[in-house]
């Protein structure tokens, strides 16, 4: 095949997914503020206007971006200049890298060539995700340390301890999924979830691994430093935590990293536990409901439905972050650690053990 075509496809995939994630990041900043306002009986942002239109404050992300661009880029006196400037990059780069392995649709065939709708279908799939997202802790730690100020330092320490603790249970909680679907590739996991469980339920991760799902979601929130685990920035005791001394675009890089983590995390949860691009009861040819009823659907519509289902699930989990944030209060630090090591870790080990037993004795060769 013509190499130019391959390059074009690769670039297009990267561009599409980038646009999707960054677009969602922008929308999320608005959704977060507006959602928070409505949950708390307020009105939320509604001031920024273009040509007299406010449209419920959708221009606020734009205004924020402009504000970040034009603010003074400030380096505090005692800060270590090099590390201080490196930290936002260390935060943002891993966040961007994580999006590479998430499949956002089934493989499609264009001009006789099968194209995976995924930036890179690595054969270590989910492990790559853990490896890269584990790097995010450096941004936080470096920022906290190099600012030469006590609140960021405490924030950085807290968050490094928290992220390492929860990484363990996060990794262990998906182990069950890997065992059930016999693969670490996200594309194969998504593919495997298209089957039916006992002919009724779609074989989604939540249904075969309910405990794993709860553990993973919790660990994900802790990894993304979201409420109820947002102690690293706990504004009531640490002012703003690790990014306290940052202003201007550097600060916005931390914010962007946080939101990209959220968006990619949502995409990963929907891929691992909610079938990714699988639409319930939709096979390649059309709907096949339990009970033998089937409805034929044209191939293009199938593709659109599937990508739409992935986008829909991702959006739901993005909203869930906001929803949970304005519902659950922040934990105390010792509670976070106790939950991580004394509850989540044993439970995820138990989950692996039980999954192994079930696979071995009840259902040989997968459910």
């Amino acid at each position, binding site marked *: 095949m013509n190499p130019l075509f391959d390059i074009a496809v690769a670039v297009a995939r990267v561009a599409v997914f980038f646009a999707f994630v960054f677009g969602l990041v922008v929308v999320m900043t608005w959704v977060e503020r507006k959602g928070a306002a*409505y*949950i*708390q*009986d*307020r*009105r939320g942002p509604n001031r920024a206007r273009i040509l007299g239109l406010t449209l419920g404050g959708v221009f606020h992300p734009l205004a924020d971006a402009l504000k970040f661009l034009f603010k003074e880029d400030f380096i505090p006196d005692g800060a270590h200049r090099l590390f201080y400037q490196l930290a936002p990059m260390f935060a943002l780069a891993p966040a961007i890298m994580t999006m590479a392995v998430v499949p956002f649709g089934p493989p499609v065939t264009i001009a006789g060539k099968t194209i995976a709708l995924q930036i890179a279908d690595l054969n270590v799939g989910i492990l790559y995700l853990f490896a890269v997202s584990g790097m995010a802790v450096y941004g936080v730690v470096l920022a906290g340390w190099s600012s030469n100020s006590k609140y960021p330092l405490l924030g950085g320490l807290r968050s490094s301890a928290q992220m390492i603790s929860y990484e363990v249970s996060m990794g262990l909680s998906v182990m069950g999924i890997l065992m059930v679907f016999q693969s670490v590739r996200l594309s194969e996991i998504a593919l495997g979830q298209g089957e039916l469980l006992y002919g009724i339920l779609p074989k989604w991760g939540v249904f075969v691994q309910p405990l794993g799902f709860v553990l993973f979601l919790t660990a994900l929130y802790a990894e993304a430093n979201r409420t109820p685990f947002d102690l690293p920035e706990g504004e009531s005791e640490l002012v703003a935590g690790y990014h306290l001394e940052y202003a201007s675009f550097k600060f916005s890089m931390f914010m962007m990293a946080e939101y990209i983590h959220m968006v990619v995390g949502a995409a990963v949860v929907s891929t691992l536990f909610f079938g990714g691009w699988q639409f319930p009861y939709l096979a390649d040819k059309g709907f096949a409901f339990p009970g033998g009823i089937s409805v034929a659907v044209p191939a293009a519509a199938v593709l659109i439905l599937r990508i739409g289902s992935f986008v829909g699930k991702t959006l739901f989990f993005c909203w869930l972050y906001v*929803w949970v944030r*304005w*519902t659950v209060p922040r934990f105390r630090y010792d509670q976070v650690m106790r939950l991580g090591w004394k509850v989540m870790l044993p439970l995820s080990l138990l989950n692996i053990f039980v999954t192994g037993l079930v696979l071995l004795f009840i259902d040989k060769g997968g459910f």
Partner: protein
Amino acid sequence: MTIGVKKVARPEQMSFGESLYLLEIMKGLAVTMGHFLHNIAHNKEIPTIEYPEVRRTMPARFRGCHRLMKRPDGSPRCVACYMCATACPAKCITIVAGESPDPAVEKYPVRFDIDMLRCVFCGQCVEACPCDAIRMDTGWHTPPEDTREKLIYMIDKLLEK
């Protein structure tokens, strides 16, 4: 949504369902979603006041920024008696008296500064004034400024309002 007081039982021991947290978190999510949907559906009922355009009506006795009253001819009504400066617990009024050109009036304030950064808005100056020359009925909070000097209100500014 109306705000009511609700008695919540706080037992010492959590029940098993509560100690699992998840169920309780679900309940919490239901509550917040209820508020969210209600506020979307009844947008008009959100109690927020759109501040600069819409203002809360100030109560009649609200103590805002000061103003100095004028006589019908436009000169300040203040007779520079120092009563307000004496009464002020924050010692933020500075008055320099001068002889008034009007033979009917003895003194008038050449300088009359109020340091709004120190003022505690207690209203003692208004109470103390024998000729109702100073009032705090503008209904304004002190507007923000970028230097300290601008927040020391001089006589012109006080007469203006």
